[in-house]
């Protein structure tokens, strides 16, 4: 495929992601350059690893006989932070809602929140993976990744 075709696809795709990724993701793109060509990939990879770990911890914590809401809140706070740092706004918002339910100490409600957060995470993960694939294709075709208007 031609480089400019790929670049156009990339921009179109990025624009379609505005519901899932906010301006912070654009900031990450800005920090990527020739001296750090893998920056976005690295941050996103870290986010995936981190998120999966937190989701596991949350699932375990909510499965306990005596649910430790403080611990759950701490995990969710962490997840809120990391999703915010990469611009995954729907995940972040789901975390905010989750924290409110933690305060209420309602196990069932929290379990539902966890499902919601998981869902949002998987959605944004799919989008990000597709985006990164497009980036790789552009680079492989010898092009540069177009800058986004943030």
């Amino acid at each position, binding site marked *: 495929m031609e480089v400019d075709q790929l670049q156009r696809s990339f921009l179109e795709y990025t624009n379609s992601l505005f519901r899932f990724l906010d301006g912070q993701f654009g900031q990450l793109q800005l920090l990527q350059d020739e001296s750090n060509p893998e920056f976005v990939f690295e941050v996103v990879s*870290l986010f995936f690893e981190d998120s999966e770990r937190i989701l596991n911890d949350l699932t375990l914590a909510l499965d306990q006989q005596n649910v430790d809401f403080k611990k759950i809140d701490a995990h969710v706070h962490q997840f809120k932070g990391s999703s915010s740092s990469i611009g995954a706004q729907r995940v972040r918002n789901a975390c905010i809602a989750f924290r409110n339910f933690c305060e209420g100490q309602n196990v069932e409600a929290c379990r539902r929140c966890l499902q919601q957060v998981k869902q949002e995470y998987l959605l944004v993960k799919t989008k990000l993976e597709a985006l990164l694939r497009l980036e790789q294709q552009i680079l492989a075709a010898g092009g540069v990744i177009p800058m986004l208007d943030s």
Partner: protein
Amino acid sequence: MAATEAQFHVLAVDDSLIDRKLIERLLKTSSYQVTTVDSGSKALEFLGWNEDERANSNEAFISSKNQQVVEVNLVITDYCMPEMTGYDLLKKMKESSILKNIPVVIMSSENVPSRINRCLEEGAEEFFLKPVRLSDVNKLKPHMMKAKSKDVEKPEKQEKQDNNESTEEASSEIQLQTQQSHQTAQSNNKRKSMDDGPTPDRTRPRYSGFTVMSN
């Protein structure tokens, strides 16, 4: 010894790996030397803080030959961290005679006015809301410049704006340059560039377990 370092060294403290990576990139983009640690206690250790106040009474930045101390021009720390919060770290630094003059900036994902005020009152220079952006990092330089100019023990400092300068050796290098002023324009070869790594005995910290990134 005189230090005409053009590169400022920032210590970033955050328990989140992603945020450490981000802040490191933001700081390096602004041409700062960066060290990241994941806790307040590691930060204090890196800064040479000691439980024993007597040990803290010596100016750590005057190079006393046997002391391996690293000069840090600014500390930027997350607020919410387990065990020691950014506020606790700030407080400990302000209580220490060797660390109180290092400017401290707090970052937080939560916009809590009472928290912000508390930190500013305790002596934090700035409070950044996360996610931190380049425009925030651009606010750091004046604080570091101000702290450097306050450091009266050091002899007159000629602030070199040249970004290729990197070490304290530079001042003696400059004298050498002027003596050989009609040498070739390859004078930059005599300057130690950052790619050669930090000067031994100087800025390379001796601590293990820290992520020290000097490039």
